Structure formats: C-alpha cells, structure tokens
C-alpha cells in the first residue's frame, strides 16, 4: 500500500538547460508530499503545466527531471519499470483524465466495465447504480460518442472509482457540470475516501470541486 507520493524537485526537462526559465512554484522545483488519507487541490492558471503534472504522476510521460517517489510507509519506494507502471495504474493511482479518454463506440456501462474488468473491483449492478446516482439513468446503454461533454465527464468519474487505489487524481472533474452533479460527485468521492482512507488530488483552473481540502497548492 502506497502511503505517500513525493515530488522531489520535479521540473520539465524542457527547462533543464536554463532552470531559471522553468516554473518555480509550490510543486515545480520544490519538494511536496501527498499523503494517503488527505485531500489536495492543485490550482493552476493556463500554461503552468497542469497537464504535465498529471501525466508525470500517472507515468504517461517521462520528460521531467527530479524524482517522483511512491513510498509504502516502511521507507521503501516503488521501483520503476514496466510491471510496476502497470501496478501503479491498476491498483495504486486512479485517474480521471481531463479529456476523459472514453471509447465513443461503447456504452457508458461498457466503458466503466472495461476498466473494471482489469481488477474485477466491483459488479455491473453497482456500476449502473453509480451512473444512475449521477443522473445517467437514460444513458446507461447509449454509446458515449452520442453523449454531451458533461455526461461523459460523469462516466469518466465513475470509471475512475471502479478500481482499487491509494490515490485518486481528478483533472478538472467538474469543468462542464452543474452544481447539483458536482455535489453528488463530491459525496461519492468523500464516501470512498472515508471508506478506504485514500488520498485525493484534484486539479482546477478556477472552477473547484467543492471538497474539504487539507492543502491547496499553486502550480
């Protein structure tokens, strides 16, 4: 079980020749620790590297300097490599992408079940119940390609929840949602955090998920 994620002087490789040109903030070129059980908001304006931060954390990109360390609480860091990268995505870090990364030809239930099949975390009945809770009862078996951006955002959120994890990273989760749905999403996230004691990291460029954050960091 991963207890903390440390960003140790991480910066974009792009600026390694001239570090003074690179961003310096509470996250970049700094040491910041995300702990299990706590919640964090990463606040950023456009161009501050929010997408890069998410990609580095998920292991989708490696073009950074410094270290991202996943600690298990006994002083051991999770090593790199292909199998640990898979482990990170399957059981350590759940990710809700800003661009959702849903499959337009599959229904909302199938999109979630496709992710759920990797670990068999939950049942289709529970998946349907979560989607219904977010107001998608008429869109359960409709291809995601025919759904609005906001509806897709809710499917992507449910999909992120359908796996075991120690941390969840939500990249602008309510950019296209009304307050009512944002509140339901907040409730579902809180329930999960209370149940499993997971860490929550949310990003925002202004429109914040209404959550009780332990720390707000500026990129």
């Amino acid at each position, binding site marked *: 079980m991963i207890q903390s994620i440390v960003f140790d002087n991480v910066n974009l490789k792009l600026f390694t020749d001239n570090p003074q040109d690179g961003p310096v903030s509470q996250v970049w070129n700094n040491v910041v620790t995300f702990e299990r059980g706590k919640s964090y908001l990463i606040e950023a304006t456009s161009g501050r590297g929010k997408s890069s931060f998410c990609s580095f954390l998920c292991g989708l*990109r490696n073009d950074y300097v410094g270290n991202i360390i996943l600690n298990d609480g006994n002083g051991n860091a999770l090593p*790199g*490599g292909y199998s*640990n990268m898979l482990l990170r995505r*399957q059981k350590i870090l759940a990710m809700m992408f800003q661009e959702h990364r849903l499959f337009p030809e*599959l229904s909302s239930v199938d999109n979630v079940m*496709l992710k759920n099949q*990797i670990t068999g975390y939950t049942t289709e009945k529970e998946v349907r119940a979560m989607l219904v809770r977010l107001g998608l009862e008429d869109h359960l078996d409709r291809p995601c390609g025919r759904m609005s951006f906001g509806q897709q955002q809710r499917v992507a959120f449910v999909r992120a929840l359908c796996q075991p994890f120690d941390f969840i990273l939500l990249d602008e989760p309510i950019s296209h949602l009304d307050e009512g749905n944002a509140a339901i999403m907040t409730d579902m996230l809180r329930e999960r955090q209370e149940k499993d004691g997971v860490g929550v990291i949310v990003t925002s460029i202004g429109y914040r998920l209404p959550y009780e954050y332990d720390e707000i960091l500026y990129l």
Partner: protein
Amino acid sequence: MKLLFKLLRQNISLGQILGFVLINLVGGLIVLSGVQGYKDFKSFSTGGDQILSAGYLVVTKPVESILAERPVFSEDEIKDLEKLSSVSSVGEFVASQIEVKASFALGQAKLSSDIFLEAVPDEFIKDDYSAVGNEDRVWDADLDTKLLPVILPRNYLNLYNYGYAAANGLPQITDDLLGTFPLRIYFDTEEGRVDYNAMVCGLTNKINTILVPWNFMKELNEKYAPDADCSPSRLILTTDAGDFEDSLFEYLDEKGYVMEGDSSHVRLQSFIYGILLVVIVVGFLFSLMAFFLLVVSILLLIEKNKEKIVNLFSMGYSVRKIAMVYQLTVLVIDTFVWIVAALLTTIIYPYFSAMMQESSSDFVPASLWQVWLVSLLFILLFSVMHGLVVYRQVRKHCKCNERGK
C-alpha cells in the same frame, strides 16, 4: 476479453481478410498437393518391387575389350563414392566363383541351364516376401536342409510365361505360385556336386541377376574358391531421400562409370522430384504473399486503433492483453485457412487417386497424415510469426509509457 474484442475488432477490413484467405487457400492447396504428390510419387516409383530398398542405382565399369582384365572397383574408388553427399550407402556385388546350374521340372517338361549367382549385402534387401506367398521366410540359407532363398529378375518369369511356356503348351506361373516353384541349384565343387532346393523369395524388375544371401555367397567362395579374386565389378548405391542429386550423375560421367538398367528411371525420378519441389515452392510463395498481406492488414488495423490502444494502456491494460485480441484474431484466421486447405486436399485426393489407379495399377493411394502435419506446422509458423509482429506493433504504440520511471 469480450469487451476488449468488441472495442478492438472494429475497423477490421473484411475485404483484406477475404483477400488473405483466398490467396492463402490457393497457396496452401498447392503446397499440400505438392507434399502429397511427393509422397505418392515416392511410393509409386518404389512400388511394384517389394524386394529392393528405395532409391538405388547400380554402377559398373565399362568393358574395354575382350582381352582386357575384368574391370573392378578398388577400395579407394568405393570410399570416394561413399563420401558423396547424396549417397547414403554403397554395397558390393559378389559373384559366385564356381560353376552353378539350375533345373526345374514342371510335369513332363524339364529345363536345365548354367546360371550365375550374385549377392549384395543384406541391408539392401527388404524382408518382405509376401508377394510370392513366403511371408514366414528369412533371407538366410539353411545349410542343414539345403534350402537356399533366391530372388529372380522378373523378366526371367516373363521369358518363361510368354516365351517358353507359351511355345511348349506349359502352364503359366503367377507370382504367388513362385514360393512353391520346384527349382534346384547345383554347385560343381572340387568335392563333388552340392545340391540345394531353391526357394524363390521374390521378384525384382530392377536388377538383372539372381540374388542369394550375402553370407552364403561369401562362405561358398571362401570354401570352394579361396584364391579367386572377389573384387566387385558392380556396386549398388542408395540414398535415404529416394532421389539422387545431379552432382552424382556428373561424378559418375566424369569417372567413366556406367549406370545400369534403371538409370533413366532414376534420372526421371530426380526430374519429377525437381518439378514437385518447384510446385511446393510456388505454393509457398503464394502463402508467403498471403502471410504478408495479413501482416499489412493487421498493422493497418492496429494503426487505426492506435488511440484506443494508448488509452487502454493508460487505463492499466498490459501490452500482452491488448495484443492478445489481435493475436487470437490472426490465430483463428490462420487456423481456418490451413484447416480448410487440408480438408479440401483430403476431399479432392480420392478423386485424384481413383484417376491415377485407372491409368496405372501400380498406384497405391497414400495416407494423408503428412498433409495434416504440414498444415499444423504452417498454422504454428504463421500464428507465431503473426503473433510476434502484432505484439511488437502494439508495444511500439505503448513504448513511450512502457519504460516507466
């Protein structure tokens, strides 16, 4: 896996797959027909002679003149022949060094003649005397009961049946009666005449001599003609593959050796094997073309699904699991094609063999297990190769993420 298939099977081009199936079916049918043809021809070309091993050649040295010494092969010349790549074994012909007579009586008719016996090593003789009703016999002389097994040239029987018997109103002799044929053989030795009852073990239409067991002939010569020169003037060559390479014929020509009787048959055999090889190669080229067509189709499919593959990988799907969808697809297609090709060959073959049997009674239909074995080998080869190509391509798309840090 069901959802993965549902997602990734989209964009499959049925036209491309159909093209692959058709081209590979044509190639597969040609390859499998070539393989079966090879087997048929092998049994056909060695059929009709149950006595001598397959793929053999008899060579002699030419007789220079009446007064010249008997041309014989030296030990070095025999060793040189053994070293040739297409020759698997070399055997010597040993001739009887004393006078031999044979006689038989059939009713009132009696026939007697001086004859000449020879022997080749036993490994060149197959122990199958069923054609003359002597299944239980062994290729060995019995000195106690004076029983001597012999193999006769088929044209001796033809000479009797169509010449002597027809002219003298005698009954004709069939193959299965030969086992009980009352043939006696006499050896004139210094100690007097030694009689043997000859038991015909078989007929051969490939060597024009009367063959007796090797050990018997060696002992006979050692006992009654110890000083005689037994150097071989004829050799028998064999090959495991059942055919000889052209280089052998060139070597024999160069050395001035003469191929006996069946050389044209061996050359024809070699020529037909060559044609069958070309047929198999053409079929294989078709299959190879189809193989690459499927490679291109599947690579295009993976390219079209590149975004989906990257997304699946970012969700936590392994490269192996993503690639498995495409690997199972190519496995099904490859298996389908080669099984259908083998089935078609199996269905068509009885018609072909019936046609062959009409034109030649010597033709014996061969079993088709090699066709199925070759099909299985191609399924294995194609699926493994396709599977590797698919895995590499999927991994390439995930490569930027795969290393981790």
